[in-house]
């Protein structure tokens, strides 16, 4: 056995990874290795900033930034596109180009999130909790400056952590097996309790609903298609991109349409470029000022990046929860607290360093993006794993410096993007909402090339809008959705591998204890906080201060209808689950039983609450209800029409007709203006998706029929 291990590695004497960590080999070897690493740092840095590499890094970073800004296109896409250019590149420049394109995606996504309330990529969803609220307060520049700086700092932290871990990288990666991942994912789940401003009961309902949604699709243990209800295409499960776009972006569009004002609500008038510039620097200073928060959130991001299959969206939410929990000013979270932007943006970029670990240490990719990176490295003629760690550590440092410098470039250029893009937010909603809607459905389709995803985004849009109105945490739903599958799969594997007592093993047990302490702390602090914050109100309606127009609330009666509807869906799922094998059905049952119970409890709570007191609490201000149900109705109708048009006539004719009709007929804009805007938007999307990124959009049934497809 010993012979199988190279001179630079330790003998695998024991079964427990942690013990292996302690058995560090001879000090001589360590010294030699350290020298190699120091040389690697110098060589890696010099290569990265050399003229042969730097230009590629700049191009890659800018490409990633643009991909990030466009909703629906994510880091995976940026890398897949970049790979095609690698065949003619030198290793150094190839890595800089490829990884640069991946590193800046969440920066670009953050810009879209703060400006438009649309997550540019899924990992920016957590930024939506406070970013757009800051925009509404008139602090747009501060939010953007802080977000981009936190990204840079987070990425730097992750990269430096990766560098520091190089000597024990393999051991670190092997540390996380199914039992440990179950506990960590569970720990992340406990953060839903502190995520939003919403009350605990509703957050739990949302989180459980999210977990249930994660169960949709093929269970590969038994090959059972769960909860697809006859939709064959749902067998792959709901994809993250359309769900995130729907919950947050489409919901925001519905609200925007119903409010009928500019997107940037709080701003009396748009600041001059100078003022925005000044704000950006204020934001930069704010991020540096909160360095301790940045550090902690980056650590969360890096740690969660190590776990395969998790992705960066949950890391950002956990970081948000942590930022809120540790803040002195918890009440202002969700109303435009800069810490609520700094936390998630630092975490979602710090993930990169962690995610690279298993790819570099063993050549085992932890995510689809890392799988592309791996094949890219192969194309460049580089081997990952021990060979790279021992012989090409300079390559690892090129990656590390690429992440840092790429983010620096992204930050600088991102700041130039802010001013022109921020003008867009002042456009009135009657034109902006249909235009952004066209952007959103394009992104939803492009992520998988699936018409179903457009429908998913639209349905989740309605769902997200209602959740927002009734004060259910969309963040909690999303984190449940992302973690549900990870928890179920790893729990199953942990049970299969180690039996039910896996929890009693030292490592998982220690982590579980941490989770319990954490949960207890969360519960206690929330409880104390609540007693202090609202001693008088027995109920959960947030204080009506801040920006009432952005805090719409449904009436208790409509909330009961909403709950009843969800209840019917869950009951249908409950009955459906009886048809599955026990292995596939047990997790859904474990989720649905408390879910049904909590929903009944919530309905009872609404009914028993004094109706008079409630209606008095609800801020029914003019701007919220302007247009009222009629506006919502027209929006829903136009969304259905949008889907039908795309399905029938094809993507671009569909969004063109939809845009024109929404502006001209529904919003009663001028004919020429409606035509010009809708044509320009369609043309711009055509240029971006079909020409620039070469993504084929849907042709439409009519066109497919004429071409001779056997769809019919």
């Amino acid at each position, binding site marked *: 056995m010993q012979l199988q291990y190279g001179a630079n590695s330790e003998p695998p004497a024991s079964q427990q990874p942690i013990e292996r960590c302690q058995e560090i080999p001879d000090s001589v070897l360590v010294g030699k290795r350290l020298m190699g690493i120091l040389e690697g740092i110098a060589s890696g840095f010099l290569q990265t900033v050399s003229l042969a590499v730097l230009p590629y890094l700049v191009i890659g970073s800018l490409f990633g930034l643009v991909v990030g800004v466009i909703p629906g296109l994510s880091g995976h896409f940026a890398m897949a596109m970049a790979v095609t250019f690698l065949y003619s590149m030198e290793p150094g420049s190839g890595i800089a180009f490829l990884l640069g394109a991946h590193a800046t995606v969440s920066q670009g996504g953050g810009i879209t999130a703060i400006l438009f309330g649309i997550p540019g990529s899924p990992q920016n969803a957590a930024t939506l909790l406070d970013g757009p609220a800051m925009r509404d307060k008139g602090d747009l520049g501060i939010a953007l400056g802080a977000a981009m700086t936190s990204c840079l700092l987070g990425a730097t932290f992750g990269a430096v952590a990766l560098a520091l871990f190089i000597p024990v990288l393999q051991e670190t990666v092997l540390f996380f097996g199914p039992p440990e991942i179950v506990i960590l994912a569970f720990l992340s789940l406990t953060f839903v309790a502190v995520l939003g401003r919403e009350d605990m009961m509703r957050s739990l309902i949302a989180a459980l609903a999210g977990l249930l949604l994660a169960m949709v699709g093929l269970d590969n243990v038994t*090959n059972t298609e769960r909860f697809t209800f006859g939709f064959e295409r749902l067998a792959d499960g709901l994809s993250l991109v359309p769900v995130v776009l729907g919950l947050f972006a489409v919901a925001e569009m519905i609200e925007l349409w119903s409010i009928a004002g500019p997107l940037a609500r709080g701003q009396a008038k748009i600041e001059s470029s100078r003022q925005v510039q000044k704000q950006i620097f204020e934001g930069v200073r704010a991020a540096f000022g909160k360095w301790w928060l940045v550090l902690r959130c980056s650590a969360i991001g890096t740690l969660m990046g190590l776990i395969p299959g998790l992705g960066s969206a949950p890391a950002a939410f956990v970081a948000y929860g942590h930022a809120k929990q540790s803040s002195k000013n918890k009440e202002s979270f969700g109303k435009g607290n800069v810490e609520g932007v700094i936390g998630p943006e630092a975490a979602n970029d710090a993930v990169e360093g962690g995610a690279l670990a298993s790819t570099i240490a063993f050549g085992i990719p932890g995510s689809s993006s890392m799988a*592309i990176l791996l094949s890219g490295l192969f194309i460049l003629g580089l081997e990952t794993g021990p060979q790279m760690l021992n012989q090409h550590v300079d390559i690892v440092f090129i990656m590390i410096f690429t992440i840092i410098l790429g983010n620096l470039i992204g930050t600088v250029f991102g700041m130039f993007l802010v001013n022109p893009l921020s003008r867009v937010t002042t456009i009135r909603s009657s034109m902006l909402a249909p235009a952004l809607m066209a952007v959103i459905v394009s992104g939803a389709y492009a992520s998988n090339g699936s018409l179903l995803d457009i429908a998913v985004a639209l349905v989740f849009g309605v769902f997200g809008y209602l959740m927002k109105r009734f004060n259910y945490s969309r963040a909690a739903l999303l984190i449940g959705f992302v973690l549900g599958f990870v928890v179920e799969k790893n729990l199953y594997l942990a049970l299969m591998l180690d039996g039910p007592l896996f929890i009693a093993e030292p490592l998982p047990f220690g982590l579980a204890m941490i989770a319990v302490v954490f949960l207890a702390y969360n519960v206690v602090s929330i409880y104390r906080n609540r007693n202090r914050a609202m001693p008088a109100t027995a109920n959960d309606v947030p204080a009506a201060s801040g920006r009432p127009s952005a805090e719409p609330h449904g009436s208790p009666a409509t909330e009961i209808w909403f709950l009843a509807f969800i209840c019917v869906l869950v009951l249908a799922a409950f009955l459906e689950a009886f048809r599955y094998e026990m292995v596939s059905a047990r997790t859904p049952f474990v989720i649905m039983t408390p879910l049904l119970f909590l929903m009944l409890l919530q309905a009872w709570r609404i009914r028993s609450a004094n109706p008079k007191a409630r209606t008095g609490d609800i801020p029914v201000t003019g701007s919220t209800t302007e247009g009222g149900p009629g506006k919502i109705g027209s929006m829903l109708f136009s969304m259905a029409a949008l889907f039908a048009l795309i399905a029938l006539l094809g993507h671009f004719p569909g969004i063109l007709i939809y845009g024109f009709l929404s502006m001209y007929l529904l919003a009663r804009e001028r004919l020429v203006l409606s035509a010009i805007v809708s044509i320009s938007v369609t043309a711009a999307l055509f240029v971006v998706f079909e020409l620039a990124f070469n993504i084929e959009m849907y042709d439409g049934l009519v066109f497919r029929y004429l071409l001779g497809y056997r769809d019919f």
Partner: protein
Amino acid sequence: MGISLEGLVRKNVLRWLAASMLAITSLVNGGGVFAQDAGSFYEGKSIKWIVPYKPGGGYDEYSRLLAPFVSKYTGSRVDIVNMPGSGGMRGSAEIFKAPADGLTVGIVPGSALVMNEIAGQKGAAYKIAEFTYIGRISTEQRVMVVGAESGIENFEEFADGSKTIVVGAAGLGGNAYVDAVIAAHVFGLDQKLIHGFNNSPDIRLALLRGDIDAWWGSLAEALKGVSDKELTIVLHAEKNPQKELENIPSVYDVIAGSEDEAAKVKILDAWKALSVVGRPVVGPPGIPEDRSDFLRDAFRKAMSDPEFVETAKAAGRQISYASGSEMIEIIRSVTGMDQQTQELFAVAIRGEL
């Protein structure tokens, strides 16, 4: 914006015009549109090449490597369209129902398509035997590997079933799963099969941690682990093994001289035939013969273009060409396996073995 707008209008108008013209002519001529010479037909056209997976995987990489060369020998532009879903079934079905004008082709997961059809998987909206076969890009060589942590060094240690080995696999009925089940059945191994892993990287990590002992994977993936001294190949399925597999027993060596050898060989042959299907390039059924011949010819030239061979090698992608007619033979031999063997595979895929 002016140019792009113009382009947009022109492209859409032209698309509609072209489609309506096509529809009208085909109605009038009753499908006799395909009268013109195939070479000039493809000149300046664009071929839609469907990849039934996300960008970045093996199928995608092969396609992007080959596309410029297909373009070179057909005179058409090759547009790669990723259409992920249902483990490659969605994109494969899209190819199957595309118009048979020879302008839509794609790469498909051959053995998975065959297995699904054998197991009678519902939702398989294609008939494997009816595709138009252009050729094959590569096959997959399957090997059994053990992790360094398992303490196992060769197949003999557990060949007689005296030692329980823990084997990992991804989905029920997936490649690694079926391989493991069939092997254990034929060799009489004492096997604890744990499936439900996400994908092969997941399984490799479990091997490294020592959570599982062994795994059936592709040779390319296994060799990487071997060179890092993390994995050991203990068994392969080749009759003429390449250099890296010398001194490692093949599945045929293991059963040599055992009772029921002939019956076992039959199962192993059928099993081997499945992996020979590999990654074929196909078009929808009914492409006019002159066009499919033209495509096959162009594909053959592209696959043997020295520059392509060179890039594929540099990218670490094994190629193993088979012609369209050879592919038809291969498919015929797999789908034509006898009832008993077919039943064995069907229960293996369904997880009932």
